[in-house]
């Protein structure tokens, strides 16, 4: 899984800590979300998308061959 969370976060001028606080998670969770190493729940994905002003599809890119 790839994510574009970092790009959208930078566009919104948010730090990882600020994004984490906005969605109510730890900063390390945001770190692993950006790396694509953590599979978030639908609610968390929705919260992150809402804060970053994007859709879940825009933020999370799944490789269909996986």
């Amino acid at each position: 899984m790839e994510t574009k969370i970092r790009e959208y976060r930078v566009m919104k001028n948010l730090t990882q800590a600020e994004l984490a606080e906005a969605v109510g998670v730890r900063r390390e969770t945001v770190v692993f979300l950006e790396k694509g190493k953590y599979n978030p729940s639908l609610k968390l994905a929705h919260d992150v998308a809402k804060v970053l002003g994007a859709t879940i599809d825009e933020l999370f890119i799944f490789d269909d061959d996986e």
Partner: protein
Amino acid sequence: MTNEEKSKENSEEKIDKTGKTDKSEKTSGIFAPKRFSELGANERRYVISAALSAAAMVIVIIAAYVTGAGAGFNLIGLASVILVLILALIAAKMTGKKAVLLAGSLLGLLMIIAGLALTVTAGDNFQMMITGGFIMFIICFAGYRKPADREIQDERSLKIGTWGMAYSWYLTYLVIILAFWLSYLKAVTFTVEMITGILIILMPVSTIIFQKYFASRGDVY
């Protein structure tokens, strides 16, 4: 929705739906009964720890009677003292106060050193003191070293915590099975103190190791 907005909405919903103030607000105070769902995260942990400790005591007492181990009132008294000490340790950890946790860590370290020294000099086995000191040190030092944002329990930390404990439980179960068969086939002679001491150390240490491993990977799968 952030956590602040959620709690605000919840409190507003209560007033909107009922049209009157919550009864618990009228009777609020130290001794006012609260529902489990109304308790904070730390308060819930106290309640769960106390309930599980009581359950553990009941299980041990029943097991002692069923197996004919000669249980008496001293068993209940001693078990109660041990559980009160465990709950005091849990309460100290949950205060989150650095001074309390540092004192607990140092006390645990002293117990380990004293236990080892007494074993060498007195010739007796002070395994209980060493094991108890080890547990106290691990729990208090881990709490002392926790960074500030670790107070937040999010879905990832809960997931990793749960899976870490599940793997630890599985590993412990395999160790118990192995120890049983080795003892049954007389390949090794384990005493009860040895087995329980191993398990007391194995479970929290393996939990921490599994949780750290999953945390470094990012997810559990």
